[in-house]
Structure formats: C-alpha cells, structure tokens
C-alpha cells in the first residue's frame, strides 16, 4: 500500500520511456476538458479512465507536480514542454501502476462529476440525520444551487417517518460490499445532527496517509457508491435517486450523442448537419468523439474498405501515434483529416477501464 502516494507519483502512469508526451493532455483530461484532440490523445496515454476526476486541479499545482518529478530525476523535458519517463521513472511507475490498479474508475468522469454526487450525498445525509432527530433548525451545508435543489427535491419526495431507517439500511447494504476500513473512512466524513464528521486532514492523519492518497481513495469510494447505487435494483431506490439525476447514460456530450444517433439513423453526414443546423465540421467532431468513446462505433460506414498498397505499407510500418497526416495525404490525396483521425481511433488501442 503506497501510503505516501503523491499527485506527482500518480502522473507517472501516463508517461512513457519511448514517446515524448504532452503534459497539457494530462492536465486537460484530468480536469475534464472535452475536445476531440484531448480525448484522442487522452485515450492514447491511458487517461480516459481518470477523465474529469480532478476538475478543480489548477495549472500551477499541475506544473508543480511535474517539477517535482523532474527534480527526482523521474522525467526529462524538452523545450516545447513534452516529457519523457527516465529509467528510474520507469521503475517507480511500476509500483504506482500496481497500486492504482486497485481503484476502478472506468471513465466515470465521462458520465458525471463525482464531486457533485459527493456533495449531494453529504447534503442528503445531513438532512435525513437532522430529520431523524426531529430537528429543523440547523445550518445546512452550502453547495451550488443545483445541488441544494436536488437534495431538497429528494427529501420532499421521500420524506416519511421511515426515511432514516430506510436510508440507514441502504447505506448498510452498500458498506457491506466494501472493506471495513474503507467503510469506516467513508462514513467518518459524513455530517449529521450534532455530529460534524472528520475533515480530510483528520482522516489523513488517522489513516496515516498523504492528502493525495486519501483524495484518490475517497474518489474511488464515491465511484463505488455510484456504481452500486446506479445498478438496477429495487432494493436501494433512495440511493439510486441521489445518484441518477447526476449521471448521463452516454459517455458523449449531449450534442455529440444527438448527432451520433441521427447519423446511425440515416448515415449521411450532410443530412445530419442540415437537420441540426450546424456546420458539417461540427458533425464530424461529434462523430470523432463518438468513435473514441463508443466501443461499437461503425467505422466501416465511413472509412474506405481498402487502401492503396503504398498507404497500407506506410500505416503498417508505424504505430498510430507516429502517423503523419501530411505524409498520408501525399500517398492518398483523397484521404481527409477526418478519415485519418477515424482510422487512428479504429486501429489504436483505447483503454476504457482501469
């Protein structure tokens, strides 16, 4: 168990000894910036499982973490900012990957912001706890208007004398699915009547771990809760209702999902653009997002069945990250950047789960 895990250590898993990588891609994926280029490179670097888990990460803190890796001799940098893992870095990376592999985020950040769910859960527990002690004069936790409104709606809908007992039972069911130490940490941060829980720092001290170690564990606990609560079940409808308003079924943005559905119906890009009254290029961007994030994307509908032998030779001799569009267009002038990127996505390995 890496009790001393830092954010710098965590970044090592996304770096390589063979390929210079762009730090900006790491930062943008971790904070959940959804652009095609970012998602594409994020997929190549193994970032998608962790997409949007650290939405509040600042560029300064990220820079500082890289500087620390540099200082420890774990990475080297180019003038353009790209970084490469050193041999020492590679050794360190292995133990980090071993440790991180116990956390399963599975790209949940593509469907939600875990922070919002954590806050909504905190508020719902506080409201129910105060209600169980028949107290309606207390300081509610102050979150965004949307969080406050959803927690209130949940309470109004479920308010009954039985509510505290039922929520207690559902949370017990969940906590039995995780190790007792994790369940203790999860519940010790909860806020309720006359009982304000422990702060992050107090929990870190109790567990004797670094702030980042606890951050990752607490995110993983919320992710586990979301997975459990959103699974089809008629035994935990209260928790399901806390989670479901925050989750999208598709990993795509709403607009991309709409374009993709329309495309699947009529398979004509221009028709989709007309229908949605947006530029053709926008639809192409939406489909690229769909190609990256949808395992069953129908590449064969867009890409040519066969390529010239020169092109096939060029593509086969390199990894997809080494393909250069300029070179490819020389070999086949009909080949568009849209098709080029699609082909990279089709032939590349995309890791959806960690």
């Amino acid at each position, binding site marked *: 168990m890496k009790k001393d895990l830092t954010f710098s250590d965590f970044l090592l898993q996304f770096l390589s000894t063979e390929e210079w990588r762009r730090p900006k891609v790491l930062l943008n994926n971790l904070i959940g910036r959804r652009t095609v280029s970012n998602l594409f490179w994020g997929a190549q670097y193994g970032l998608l499982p962790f997409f949007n888990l650290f939405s509040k990460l600042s560029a300064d803190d990220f820079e500082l973490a890289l500087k620390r890796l540099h200082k420890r001799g774990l990475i080297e940098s180019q003038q353009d900012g790209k970084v490469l893992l050193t041999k020492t870095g590679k050794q360190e990376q292995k133990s980090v990957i071993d440790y991180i592999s116990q956390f399963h985020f599975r790209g949940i950040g593509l469907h939600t912001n875990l922070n919002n769910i954590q*806050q909504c859960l905190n508020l719902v527990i506080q409201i129910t706890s105060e209600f169980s002690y028949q107290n309606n*004069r207390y300081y509610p936790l102050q*979150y*965004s208007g949307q969080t406050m409104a959803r927690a209130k709606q949940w309470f109004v809908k479920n308010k009954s004398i039985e509510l505290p007992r039922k929520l207690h039972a559902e949370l017990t069911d969940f*906590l039995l699915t995780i190790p007792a130490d994790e369940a203790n940490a999860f519940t010790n941060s909860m806020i309720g009547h006359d*009982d304000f829980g422990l702060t992050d720092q107090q929990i870190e001290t109790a567990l004797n771990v670094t702030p980042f170690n606890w951050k990752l564990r607490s995110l993983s606990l919320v992710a586990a809760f979301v997975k459990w609560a959103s699974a089809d079940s008629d035994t935990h409808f209260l928790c399901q209702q806390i989670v479901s308003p925050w989750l999208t079924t598709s990993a795509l943005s709403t607009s991309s999902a709409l374009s993709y559905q329309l495309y699947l119906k009529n398979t004509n890009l221009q028709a989709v653009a007309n229908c949605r009254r947006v530029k053709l290029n926008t639809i192409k961007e939406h489909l690229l997002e769909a190609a990256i994030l949808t395992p069953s994307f129908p590449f064969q509908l867009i890409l040519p069945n066969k390529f010239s032998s020169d092109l096939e030779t060029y593509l086969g001799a390199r990894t997809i990250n080494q393909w250069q569009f300029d070179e490819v267009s020389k070999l086949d002038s009909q080949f568009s950047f849209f098709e080029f990127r699609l082909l990279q996505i089709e032939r590349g390995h995309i890791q959806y789960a960690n």
Partner: protein
Amino acid sequence: MQIDDKQLYKILQSKFGFSEFKPGQLDIIHRLCLKENVLAVLPTGTGKSLVYQLLGYLLRQPILVISPLISLIDDQVARLNRLGEKHVIGLTSKLDHNQRQFALNHLQDYRFIYLSPEMANQPEVLNALRRLTFGLFVIDEAHCLSQWGPDFRPDYLKLKDLRKQLGTPTTLMLTATATEAVRQDIIQKMALASDQVEQVVYSVDRPNIYLEVEHCQTSAEKKEKLIKLLQTLGGSGIVYFSSKKIANQMTELIGQQSGRSVAAYHADIDLQDRYRIQQQFMQGKLDVICATSAFGMGIDKNNIRFVIHYHMPGNLEDYLQEIGRAGRDQQESIAILLYTAGDEYIPSTLNMASFPSATNVQTFFMKPESRASFEPDQKQLLDYYRNQNKSAQEVSKIFENRQLAKQTNLMKMLAFVNENGCLRQNLLAHFDEEEPKHDEQCCGIDCALDAISTLHLDTKDIPGGKIAYGSSLIPWQTRLNQLFSQKN
C-alpha cells in the same frame, strides 16, 4: 410607525431566543421605525444583523440586504434558515438559471433578499427589485463604500443610484469599524446629506480583551513562543497567519507539540471541511484554529478566549475585526500579536501587488485584446473605471493614492506594534476615541505569559470529547447509528 417595545421584545424572544437587546440594537430599531436613515458603527459581535432581521418580522415589507461576499450571504441565509426562516434568498451567482428565474419571479414572497452589489447592477435583477417596495435597504460592511477604508469596493459606489431607483427606502448602513473620515465618506458616497443620516456610533473598544504585543528576535523564537503560549492558554482560540502554507505547517507543528486539537482554515480548505471545522470549533471539539483572514466569516462562538496574530495584519481595522472574535461572552480574553522585525514586509508586498501597475493600466486601456488576460479582480476594477470614462493616467493616479493610503494604514499598524505606552490608547486614537483609563487589565508588552496567569486564562478545561491529533476512526456501523438516530 408607532411601535410598542413589548412587541419588539416578543419578536426578540420568539424569533431569536433572546430576552435582552445588546447595546445599540434597540436604539437603532427605534430610529428605523421612525424612517430615519442610520449609519451604525457597532463593534464585531454585538449583533448587527439582528437589527434588520428583527425589522423583517415587524414590517410587512421585504428587507433588501447588500453584502460584499457570497460567503457572507450564504452564511446569513444559513443562519436565518437555522432560525426557522424559509422566506430568505441569496441572489448570487450560485443559483442556476431556473432557480434564478424562479427567485426573480417570486421576489415578493421573500422576507429577506440578500445580494451582492454586482448582482444588483444586472438589468433583469434591477427590474425585479424595482417592482417591490422595500421596508428597509441595508448596506452591510458599509465601509466598503469608502475609498479611505481598507476594503473599498468600486461596485458599492453604484448603490446610491440603486437606492434612488428603489424609491429611496429607509436605509441602514452597517459597519464594525469606521473612523470619522470613513463615516463622512460613506454618507457622501450614498449621496446623502449629513442631516439625513443618524449616526449611531458605539465604541470599538472591547475592554474585556487584554491586548498584548510580543517581540521576538527570530522566527524560530516566534515559533517556540507560539507553542509555549498554546501549551499555557486554556480554552479555545484562533491563530491568524498571512499565508496558507505557513498556516498548514504550523497546524501540524501545533498538533504534534502542543497537545491541542487543531485545524487549519483558509481558502484552500473545501466547503464541507470548512463547515466541519466551524462546527467542531463551535462545539469545543477543536481548541485551536489556524486561520488566514478568510476565517471569521460565519464563526459565532461566544467563548473564544484568545486570538493570536502570528503575522501582523495590514491595518488596525483588520486587527480590531480579528481580535473581536475573542470574548463575545464578555469574559476575560486576550489578544496577542507576535512580531519579528521585518514582518511588515508581507502586508507591504501584498499592498503593492493588489493594484495593477501604471504600465498594466496603460495596456488595459489601449489594447482591448489584453483585457482577458488580467486577473478577474483587477479586470473588474479596471472595467469599472473605464466605464466611468476615466483615462489611464487618472486611474493610475487613483491606484497610486489607494496604495499610499494602504501603506499609511500599515505604518499605523506598525506604530501600534512598536508602541511603548498603552496599546489600547494607540488603537482607540486611530478611531478618534477618547483616551481609555489604563490599568492592569488593559494591555502589556512582552509579558504575555504573566498576563495569562494574572487573568487566569491558563485554566485548562477537561480534555474529554476533543478530536485528538491522529485519533482513530469510528466503526462505520456506529457512525450510521449515530447519524440516523438508530439504536443498535
């Protein structure tokens, strides 16, 4: 409006749970009932908010409260919620589109409407506000109106127009600290004549807080002294730092070396942890809070026995505000300022950095494309002056003067730190107050440990129930039972 004091006491008891008014409250309420505009200077902890909140129950018209920070608005809304008041809204950027629309469409249903001056300038909000007739127009932290004060906010200058557009409702301007010059400036900035405003000014002095300055030769000595003080002092208290990083480091050191339960509290601590820390502190489960000036918002703990400044504040107003957290129960308390030569460079550097340089002002005015790259606070400030049709030179001059004023305030703070005579006299002179009578309960220099002993502030309370440094976690089954009032 004819009012009966009996009725006021009845509301005081039923809505707020008090049987007596604090000094100044009743006087101000009487004046407001007679529709007099009031500028009230009441020291921290004397119940300024209660004045207008009580009127909210007396008048059958909504109360509009302008407050400078979202955190302050949230705090007031949460407090009113806790008192059982549902008809209260904080119109802030935290509301999403639907909630905002709902609130604006139902504004007449709220008893208390809080909003920031920036929000009041939005046409949609202004239109909704104009449809109502307000019982009272309240400007909280009114010293933000004064360019002579340390917390000047340009957006506050538009409040005079807002007041006019709302039909000049009776106005209450509230502040905890304002010199004579600042008070005059506030009245002028609200476009009111002196005879249109009743000034209710109470002494800023808090005689139950013993003032102490400790001079240390080195920062190591300061660190040692802080630990020694915390080992000696009983009860709970706040230690103020000027940097989040040092607040964090010292929290760890205090936890390990002083045996006190302690937590850091500043802008980097997330919302729910701030809430937990506030509540743990209020309940006496935490002894010491290591805070930056972000702290203070929302803390209403009566029995804080000590406030220690590890770094000096930038002006006497902030100092007074921060030490004012101590001894609200009127019991003996102590404020200790630890000083090492050179400490003044921190606030001085902060002052320098708080305004854009003349070159940056020039760039902002001449090159519109550069504006997006400015820090949001600076951009807001520069936009304000640009919209006032000021030239780059004029704005630079304004900033130069403001910076000078801040440096002057810092020098006064430094003069307090280096005072050889009576500290309280030095402090009160700044607020144009009469010379107090100095006695052994008043103040001291470099004798904090003796003072603690003389004032009996070294009485240790029973340690039970504290969150000890590194205490272990409670089993989850027990936690759930506690949370939901379930028996095992």
